[in-house]
């Protein structure tokens, strides 16, 4: 049997190796990965919005707050690297701890499948790094649930940390963590219910309170479930895609390998092997395989629901009554728990294959090797930043110049073109990326947050966006914007759809132009003034404080009692 310290070293090394192979291009030079929703900036100025105090829907609360604080100390490019590499290593270590009583090759199989699968590829390519981190926390939720089942009085601490960290990553990650904890931890012992409910609510207050108190939110559900439903990647159909952890709605980010029916079906063979190995993987934890199987099956159903006939309409009807269900519109992301379950099962499959090795059947070792290597063989394009597609970029210097100008003369900024929130900057090789302006520039920065689908437009969630749209359509946009409380217009050049707005141009660079509207007339305190009332502010702050205390107390108790990091059973 491998010594605990050595096992941890092996698991960390294997996880770090995979992280380096996947994230390599980001690590070998300066700059950022900027694509899809992945936006990091050198120094993200502090704003109340990062804590959900702007009355908008808390999509990145409180992760934006933590990133903002971190970038006051170290450059954003370092923060990006630390979060991605750290997430991969801790995620790999977590699933290795779930199957800690297995040999190194079995743990390696689990780590490889967790970190190298179509779900990881597709979420990375779409830039949803926080969702990816939330997924990598899930193995620690499995471990925490095990502790809660064994001893609710002591297990709460790990549960608080795991669910709390997941909730920080994103609201949907927090929800997934709570559901996973409930499925895996709740027994007839009422204390397990109490721990799950208390930790689940307390840890998620950090985004739950801003969501419930948001004053300017109008979540549209009309048609969005169908637009964001999981899709078949190949001729094999939807189910094989989902069973092999693929099937994202945005088919344009699919690796070509996933469009091959044969490869998707081969990937399903790995899924079958992992499912068959699940019971063996957690044999020392009676009944856990059933819970894991239920969790994986539930994830599959949630991911598939909007894609099956009538499913989208059903969820849409439900979401009109329960607005919180709008969270499910990108249902494929909720396939994440299945990834953890299959990774766990892969360890059992590898161990089971090893146990069949005997004289005359030594070649079964190659089956063990195949189980370990299969995720890579089936999706080699994940290596080296999606086969070199993901290249680093650096912001032009003028972004800092504009940020300095706005810091000296604060005021609400409207970013043009007012046509969706994704940009294709020349300096970023034209890759589609979420506009960095709200994170790069100080003060209130408004971009068009409507979601433009192929055949429909999902209305903006923030009514202030509609106010700006009407102002830009007015005969005198500058006057209308001033009346709405806008002082600055930032024009991102080289992009179509920019409306001419009269004002004093205080910066006119190669890629950006900053127009001051104030010289043309008084800027009123208009409807674009964000923020919440004092009562709501107190509630939101209390929510953050309770979540923080929950996580910190759990962390302290976990450290005192001994951690899974030490590979101790």
């Amino acid at each position, binding site marked *: 049997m491998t010594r605990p310290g050595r096992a941890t070293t092996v698991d960390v090394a294997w996880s770090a190796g995979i992280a380096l192979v996947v994230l390599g291009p980001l690590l070998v030079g300066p700059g950022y990965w900027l*694509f899809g929703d992945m936006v990091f900036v050198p120094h993200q100025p502090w704003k109340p919005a990062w804590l959900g105090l702007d009355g908008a829907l808390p999509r990145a609360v409180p992760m934006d707050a933590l990133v903002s604080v971190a970038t006051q100390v170290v450059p954003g490019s370092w923060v990006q690297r630390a979060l991605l590499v750290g997430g991969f290593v801790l995620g790999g270590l977590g699933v290795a701890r779930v199957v800690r009583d297995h040999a190194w090759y079995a743990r390696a199989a689990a780590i490889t499948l967790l970190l190298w699968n179509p779900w990881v590829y597709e979420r990375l*390519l779409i830039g949803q790094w926080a969702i990816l981190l939330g997924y990598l926390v899930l193995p620690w939720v499995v471990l925490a649930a095990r502790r809660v089942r064994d001893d609710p009085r002591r297990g709460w601490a790990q549960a608080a940390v795991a669910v709390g960290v997941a909730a920080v990553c994103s609201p949907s990650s927090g929800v997934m963590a709570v559901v996973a904890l409930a499925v895996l931890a709740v027994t007839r012992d009422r204390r397990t219910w109490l721990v799950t409910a208390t930790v689940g609510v307390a840890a998620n207050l950090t985004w739950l309170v801003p969501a419930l108190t948001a004053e300017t939110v109008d979540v549209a559900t009309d048609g969005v479930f169908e*637009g964001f439903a999981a*899709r078949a990647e190949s001729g094999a159909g939807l189910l094989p895609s989902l069973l092999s952890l693929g099937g994202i*709605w*945005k*088919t*344009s*980010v*699919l*690796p*070509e*390998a996933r*469009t*091959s029916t*044969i*490869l998707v079906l*081969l990937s399903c*063979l790995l899924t079958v092997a992992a499912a068959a190995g699940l019971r063996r993987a957690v044999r020392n934890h009676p009944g856990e395989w059933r819970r894991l199987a239920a969790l994986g099956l539930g994830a599959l159903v949630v991911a598939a629901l909007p894609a099956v006939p009538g499913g989208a309409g059903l969820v849409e009807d439900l979401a009109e009554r329960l607005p919180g269900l709008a969270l499910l519109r990108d249902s494929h992301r909720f396939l994440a728990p299945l990834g953890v379950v299959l990774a766990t099962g892969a360890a059992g499959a590898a161990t089971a294959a090893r146990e069949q090795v005997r004289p*005359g*059947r*030594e*070649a*079964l070792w*190659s*089956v063990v*090797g*195949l189980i370990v*290597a*299969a995720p890579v*063989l*089936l*999706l*080699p*394009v994940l290596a080296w930043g*999606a*086969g070199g*597609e*993901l290249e680093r970029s650096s912001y032009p210097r003028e972004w800092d110049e504009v940020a300095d100008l706005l810091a000296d003369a604060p005021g609400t900024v409207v970013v043009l073109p007012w*046509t*969706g929130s*994704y*940009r*294709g900057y020349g300096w970023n*090789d*034209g*890759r*589609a990326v979420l506009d960095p302006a709200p994170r790069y520039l100080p003060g209130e920065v408004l971009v068009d947050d409507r*979601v*433009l*689908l*192929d055949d429909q437009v999902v209305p903006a969630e923030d009514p202030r966006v509609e106010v700006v749209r009407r102002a830009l359509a007015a005969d005198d946009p500058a006057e209308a914007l001033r009346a709405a409380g806008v002082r600055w217009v930032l024009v991102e050049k080289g*992009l*179509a*759809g920019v409306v001419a707005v009269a004002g004093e141009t205080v910066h006119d660079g190669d890629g950006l132009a900053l127009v001051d509207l104030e010289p043309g007339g008084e800027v009123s305190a208009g409807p674009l003034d964000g923020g919440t009332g004092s009562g709501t502010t107190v509630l939101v702050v209390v929510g953050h404080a309770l979540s923080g205390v929950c996580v910190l107390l759990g962390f302290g108790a976990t450290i005192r009692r001994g951690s899974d990091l030490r590979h101790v059973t």
Partner: protein
Amino acid sequence: MNLIISSIVGALAAGAVAIGGVQAYQGSTDQKPVSDAELYTYSSE
């Protein structure tokens, strides 16, 4: 038995690599430059 096992494992691994390699050679993702129309449309295509 060893020969049979090795053959099956080898065929599976080689098949996956070969098909994946051919597919990867034939196409790529949309992280390359996109047109404005594709950029602004949160499109599946």
